[in-house]
């Protein structure tokens, strides 16, 4: 069944988009991520302009992260103080990102920047995840206990001034890295149409030593608020949020996520991380391929304005 999208200005098959929502929702529920880095490229692939895709996926991620956040809230697994701190910086990052998005679009280099950023981010994060999980898997084979870094060990991050205490997470860290992480996640999210969950969780664990108990819940709250504000900002500045497209994606996404969570709970942590790493890496390679291989058509059109 074809349905006409009012902002994307094109008809799409409603079941195809719903199916994409289900599939990405399944993956996001399974790994505890937003799935924007999969959804945005998929939408571009079916012909929706990158700008509309990025702007509309933001609202889709708000929906799925809100579902997750409610669940974690009930389990008391959210560090509100830390989330608020990250958030203040995150909104600033989002605003900067939306502004740069507009500038790049007028310079005809938005596609390139999106492509390059995806390649760098996805291949490096995917590569790291694969390496780490393969090591853990090998250690488990040899019967060695997993060597978790002791919470007491300090890095240079802990030597920074402006220390703050976050009670729920039981950490005492400087506000500077917290702000830096929040800002970069908001910024990247606005430009690339990704929630940044797959970047935020490792950052919080490695730089701030946030315990596993609160890390996912806190990251979801942050994703929720940055993506909801990105939706509003994209709507105000670029008028490119397609509410109908977002609604179809959301409905598919939240249903798919429920099944994903169940599958994810039946798998071991290392195996899950290895799969996610492979997935992230593969999407990164796909973008690299597109940038390097000669495009089928060297010319493309961009709509400047209607009269």
């Amino acid at each position: 069944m074809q349905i006409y999208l009012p902002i994307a200005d094109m008809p799409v098959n409603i079941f195809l988009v719903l199916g994409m929502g289900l599939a990405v929702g399944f993956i996001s529920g399974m790994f505890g991520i937003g799935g924007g880095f999969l959804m945005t490229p998929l939408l571009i692939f079916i012909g929706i302009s990158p700008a509309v895709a990025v702007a509309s996926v933001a609202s889709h991620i708000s929906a799925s992260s809100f579902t997750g956040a409610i669940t974690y809230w009930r389990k008391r697994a959210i560090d509100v103080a830390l989330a608020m701190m990250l958030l203040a910086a995150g909104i600033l990052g989002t605003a900067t990102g939306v502004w740069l998005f507009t500038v790049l679009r007028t310079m005809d280099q938005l596609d390139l920047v999106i492509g390059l950023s995806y390649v760098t981010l996805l291949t490096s994060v995917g590569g790291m995840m694969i390496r780490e999980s393969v090591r853990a898997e090998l250690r488990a084979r040899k019967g060695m206990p997993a060597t978790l870094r002791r919470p007491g060990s300090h890095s240079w991050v802990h030597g920074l001034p402006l220390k703050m205490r976050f009670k729920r997470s039981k950490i005492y860290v400087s506000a500077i890295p917290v702000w830096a992480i929040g800002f970069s996640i908001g910024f990247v999210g606005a430009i690339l149409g990704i929630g940044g969950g797959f970047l935020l969780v490792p950052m919080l664990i490695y730089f701030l030593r946030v315990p596993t108990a609160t890390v996912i819940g806190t990251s979801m709250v942050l994703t929720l608020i940055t993506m909801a504000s990105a939706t509003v900002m994209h709507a105000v500045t670029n008028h490119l949020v397609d509410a109908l497209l977002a609604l179809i994606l959301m409905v598919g996404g939240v249903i798919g996520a429920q099944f994903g969570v169940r599958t994810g709970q039946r798998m071991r942590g290392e195996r899950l991380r290895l799969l996610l790493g492979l997935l992230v890496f593969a999407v990164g390679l796909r973008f690299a391929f597109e940038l390097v291989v000669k495009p089928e058509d060297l010319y493309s059109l961009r709509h400047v304005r209607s009269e």
Partner: protein
Amino acid sequence: MRRLAFTLLLLVAGAAPAAAEKLVVSLSNHRVAVTSSFTGEELVLFGTIEPDRPRAALRSAYDLVVTVTGPKQTLRTRRKERVLGIWVNTDTREFVSVPAYLAVLSNQPVNTVANAETLRRLQVGIDNFLLPQRIGPDVADTVPNDPFRTAFVRLQTQYGLYRQSGTAVTFLTPTVFRATIPLPSNAPTGSYPIDVKLFADGEMVARTSSALEVIKAGFEQFVAESARDHGLLYGLATAMMALLTGWFASVVFRRD
């Protein structure tokens, strides 16, 4: 003045007792509504060739060219080149105030209707249609085989927005014709002037115009207008919708 023109007309008609004709056209539908189930539409233009005075003679063979132009848009054509191993948009041309939709429909290939000079003067055919580009501070059309112009026309043709067909007009009788105007699903909203030119023996003998309108209707119109005119409210409403969907899912699937 009018009398003078009339006398002149009589004189001309008297000098050449040949035919003088007028066109009468009618469109199957003047208003196309884009609703949520819109996947494109085909309109039909009917028309007859009539003598412009009673008992004036008609010729035996006519050619007809229908040109439909969509609302004006400014578009940028970009060309990719390999820079440091990756493909980057390096060169761009802006096409200023060009029609978003352009269909040249005729009963036989346009270049056989009249000679090249006449076609160029009357802007008949996509190659002869003015597509002004911004070149530095100037705005001008280029030669038809300019690489950016060809790429622009080719891409618009791929999107189904530009087309030239030598079979879209059929003569039902020597003086009654019908033309099918295909509107693709991505046809932008706005008004579409239609220009109908009648040719005989390589010269234009009559001309008339009509118009159709593509409008967004119902829900589509509501969404598009709110997004454009009330960005903040629209954004807030979309964000609220996301939260509601998320909350609803957590209630429906709650298992504890």
